[in-house]
């Protein structure tokens, strides 16, 4: 039995090392207020927020900059509407910010669930 446990442990370590070594596509995260969501062109424009969270600004404060994402292949949560606070995970492909996931932070407001 000890041998089997040892073998199992070694296997787990081997898998862990293998996983560690595998390349991970690092995704960036942006959060901000939705300005426009064009469903025809799959373009999502947000007003970016920073990470200065406080009671008055639970989602951060506006940096004034706008960011445009291509969300044609992204998994989109609750339908984004102008004014919603969104959080996106994205990667840069050929100088286009391609969205992976779009979370509707303000509408989901997980805390209340």
């Amino acid at each position, binding site marked *: 039995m000890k041998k089997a446990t040892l073998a199992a442990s070694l296997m787990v370590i081997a898998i862990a090392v293998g996983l560690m070594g595998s390349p991970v596509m690092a995704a960036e995260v942006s959060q901000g207020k939705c300005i426009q969501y064009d469903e025809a062109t799959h373009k999502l424009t947000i007003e970016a927020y920073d990470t200065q969270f406080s009671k008055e600004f639970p989602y951060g404060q506006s940096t004034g900059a706008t960011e445009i994402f291509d969300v044609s292949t992204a998994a989109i949560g609750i339908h984004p509407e102008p004014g919603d606070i969104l959080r996106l995970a994205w990667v840069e492909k050929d100088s286009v910010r391609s969205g992976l996931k779009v979370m509707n932070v303000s*509408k989901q407001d997980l805390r209340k669930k």
Partner: protein
Amino acid sequence: MRGIFNRCRGVLAALWVMLPAVAQASGEAAGNIVVVADTRRVTGVMHYFADLYNSDILMFAIWTVVLTVAMGCTLGFLMDFIMSRTGLDLKSRKIVEH
């Protein structure tokens, strides 16, 4: 005997309670829930896993299972080792299961 009866009734009662709520709820607007981990707020290992969660959920799932198993095994061995050093007789106790 009654204990068993209660246990079985538990399943039925749970389903019974659940059904009307589900039926009532199905009329409401549905919306997918997508979660994006805020990697801007974390660093180090936490950042690595939060990033993996965002970019490759399958890899994250495999990691979770492997790490949970590894941690369970490690803790199991460690605790057995520590308890065997306390000098208590742990062999004669009744085995209690889930």
